[in-house]
């Protein structure tokens, strides 16, 4: 069965090196920061070098954008007139005023307005507002070219991205406008001594303040593929049954998390341990922003406890590796899979097959020969559907691999993505001698491991997303 274990070149590390990493942790005094990224950020963003013809088109586009961006930045400084109230107060002005922000229950318009203005600024920051404006100008410029629709696929891509960015920009501008209108209305109401109108407007501000808290969160998920559904894969580290049991617990944690969030969860591929847990498993998580959230979970998860499988009741440390890949929509795949590159096998089938056998198990494994990446599915009711499902996993893995490859050529993303690779230890779950779950990236911790293992991982995810967003902004 070991041949089924995936070749994980997609993550830049072979599975044996992951196992090596796991094992290295059992060596006393080994440094916990074993997983330092081996990929150095490459500075490709200078942008003035022209794209060479033989680089794939999407990469050259990225580069093109950079070279255009430089030049267009000059133009974009001549920004449109900023929105303001009748007496010239702008959103930035409100932030600069630093009005004290009181509790939501306090009916103080200045407090509400200040909170709203801060949220708007945060959202803008998270959307990388300045870059977004430049990108939008570039896209508009491209869309106005008369020959754009000669390449309908490219044009469709540009037009979709333009639409998305335009929507975001309009939404934020609308929020600013709304805030300023409410302030104007309150001032007017005061001049006119209209208590009802003032109360109404303060209430509207409060509603805005509350809904913007939600929007802040959404703005964390502004990545190109964040809104996609995804596959979550969990693989047990070295250490036998205890490790497999831990991998099973981690998978259960994600299933419960996904159900809590209202996502659909389907097991695609599962290889159980002989005694307990799983050797590996892949689930499909369907729903908005599933990838955006789950991508924060990529890495190695460490468990420390007295193993129930050890008759000597010793304390064990185990690892489970988590990988998350996005399910991109049709037409936005990064890799076109050619049928001739595939080896499709039925596995777990023995004997003569055909009319000789009555089977309900029609497990299919697909190998992408050029990369050695494999995907398997055995939970569908027909071979055809197992094949389709395995193809979706394979497509997702190849897309992810290509995205990582492209990102490495593009300094902007290098840092954030390589940090998230398969082998990095990201979180520690200690059940003995004390009880604590701690994220090693953010230092966020909770002292109730049970609730975390029952799927309450949102706080970990959000703290990580916030931190990495802030880091990225600092770099810019």
């Amino acid at each position: 069965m070991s041949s089924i274990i995936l070749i994980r070149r997609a993550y830049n590390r072979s599975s044996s090196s992951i196992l090596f990493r796991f094992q290295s942790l059992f060596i006393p005094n080994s440094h916990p920061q074993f997983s330092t990224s081996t990929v150095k950020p490459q500075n490709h963003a200078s942008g003035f070098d022209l794209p060479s013809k033989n680089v794939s088109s999407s990469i050259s586009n990225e580069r093109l954008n950079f070279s255009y961006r430089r030049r267009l930045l000059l133009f974009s400084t001549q920004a449109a007139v900023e929105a303001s109230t009748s007496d010239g107060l702008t959103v930035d002005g409100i932030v600069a005023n630093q009005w004290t922000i009181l509790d939501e229950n306090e009916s103080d318009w200045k407090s509400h307005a200040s909170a709203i203005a801060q949220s708007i600024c945060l959202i803008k920051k998270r959307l990388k507002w300045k870059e977004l404006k430049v990108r939008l100008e570039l896209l508009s410029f491209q869309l106005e070219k008369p020959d754009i629709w000669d390449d309908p696929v490219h044009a469709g891509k540009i037009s979709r991205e333009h639409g998305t960015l335009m929507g975001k920009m309009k939404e934020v501008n609308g929020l600013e406008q709304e805030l300023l209108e409410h302030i104007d209305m309150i001032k007017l109401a005061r001049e006119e001594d209209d208590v009802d109108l003032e109360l109404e407007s303060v209430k509207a501000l409060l509603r805005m303040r509350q809904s913007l808290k939600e929007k802040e969160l959404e703005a964390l998920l502004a990545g190109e593929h964040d809104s996609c559904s995804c596959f979550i894969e969990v693989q047990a580290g070295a250490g036998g049954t205890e490790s497999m049991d831990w991998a099973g617990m981690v998978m259960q944690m994600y299933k419960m998390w996904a159900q809590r969030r209202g996502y659909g969860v389907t097991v695609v591929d599962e290889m159980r341990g002989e005694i307990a847990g799983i050797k590996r498993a892949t689930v499909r998580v369907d729903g908005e922003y599933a990838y955006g959230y789950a991508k924060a979970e990529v890495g190695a998860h460490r468990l420390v406890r007295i193993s129930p499988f050890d008759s000597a009741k010793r304390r064990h440390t185990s690892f489970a590796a988590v990988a998350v890949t996005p399910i991109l929509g049709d037409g936005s795949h990064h890799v076109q899979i050619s049928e001739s590159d595939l080896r499709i096998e039925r596995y777990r089938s023995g004997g003569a097959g055909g009319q000789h056998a009555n089977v309900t198990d029609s497990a299919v494994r697909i190998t992408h020969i050029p990369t050695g990446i494999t995907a398997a599915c055995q939970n569908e009711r027909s071979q055809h559907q197992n094949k389709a499902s395995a193809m979706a996993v394979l497509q997702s893995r190849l897309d992810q691999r290509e995205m990582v490859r492209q990102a490495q050529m593009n300094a902007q993303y290098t840092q954030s993505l390589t940090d998230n690779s398969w082998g990095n230890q990201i979180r520690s779950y200690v059940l003995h001698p004390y009880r604590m779950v701690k994220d090693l990236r953010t230092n966020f911790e909770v002292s109730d491991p049970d609730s975390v293992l029952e799927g309450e991982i949102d706080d970990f995810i959000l703290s990580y997303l916030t931190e990495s967003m802030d880091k990225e902004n600092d770099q810019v």
Partner: protein
Amino acid sequence: MNLSIFTKTSILSPTLSSRIILNRSISNSITPTPIISRCYPIPNPPISTNPKTPLFLRPPTFSATLSDLQKWQNWAKTLASSIGSTFTDSDNGPNSENLHRELNWLIEDALENPQFLQNPQFIENPQLQLRAELGDLYELWKQRIEERRPFQYVVGCEHWRDLVLSVEEGVLIPRPETELMVDLVEGVVKEEEDDDDDGLKGGLWVDLGTGSGAIAIGIARVLGGFGRVIVVDLSSVAVRVAEFNVKRYNLQDKISVKQGSWFEPLSGFEGRVAGLVSNPPYIPSGHIGGLQAEVGRHEPRLALDGGEDGMADLLHLCNGAASMLKSGGFFAFETNGEDQCKFLVDHMETVYYGSFYNLKIVKDFAGIERFVTGFRS
């Protein structure tokens, strides 16, 4: 658990007609399991002309409490676990893991909202709607484990390619390997440029010994708006089931179902058939007794037994292909494996020298040489 529910006549127990087939096919050695003898015999069963409705298509008119259903589920799980690898070791039958998966599918088919049983925390009403009585679910799962009744007969359907086909005793359950037959047809049809009546796509296709109608329905969907399909089967049960499946996929204008032996119902079509496909019986008679219990005890021998060397029907199909196919016409036959494939190709190249071209042997996903394809000169 009150055992009396097992003994009452179940609406789902096999009809007498299928029993006869069953008995005929197990004449070798198999003694009935105790559960059969405990069932009341049905003295005068109504001879139904309509095929049985698959479980998942029945109305959810029954109900059970969550706790009763969980009790059943736990009982069924324990029964499945108790099998371990016993069946696999004895005749390559299902193991516990396979059975657990089948149990989930049974729940999927039997419950109106199967997700509630998996996640009872979301449930509002402790009553769950079922498509069969709870007592029948006990009975069905006992049949699955103790009688080795094929899962597909238990739920009355087989998921095949992207289709869900009705199946019942008396009809061969379509095999996963056979799905590839449709891909083979799709391959040759796609290569074709035009779709006029002279070509393959627009022409007449024939599926002989169709059983549930699986291959024919697959092909009809591949042909899209073009061509038409005639399906033939000797068994009246198969003809009824195939008609039911054809109607369910709304292909009755495109597929006509005929009862008869092989080419018999096709007189007048000599030299006019564009495509001929078949998954004929190909198991050598001597092997029938040693088959996996699900197959040997429950599936129709008519669809399995290919004579002494298993080649009787395949050779008959070869002869027919030579006379029925038009020039350029395509054929694809499923076989027992390497030996039959090689024999068939050799036979066509020697006995029918010059009649066929581009003969190919195609492997299934398990790597077994399974199909022979080719064209009429």
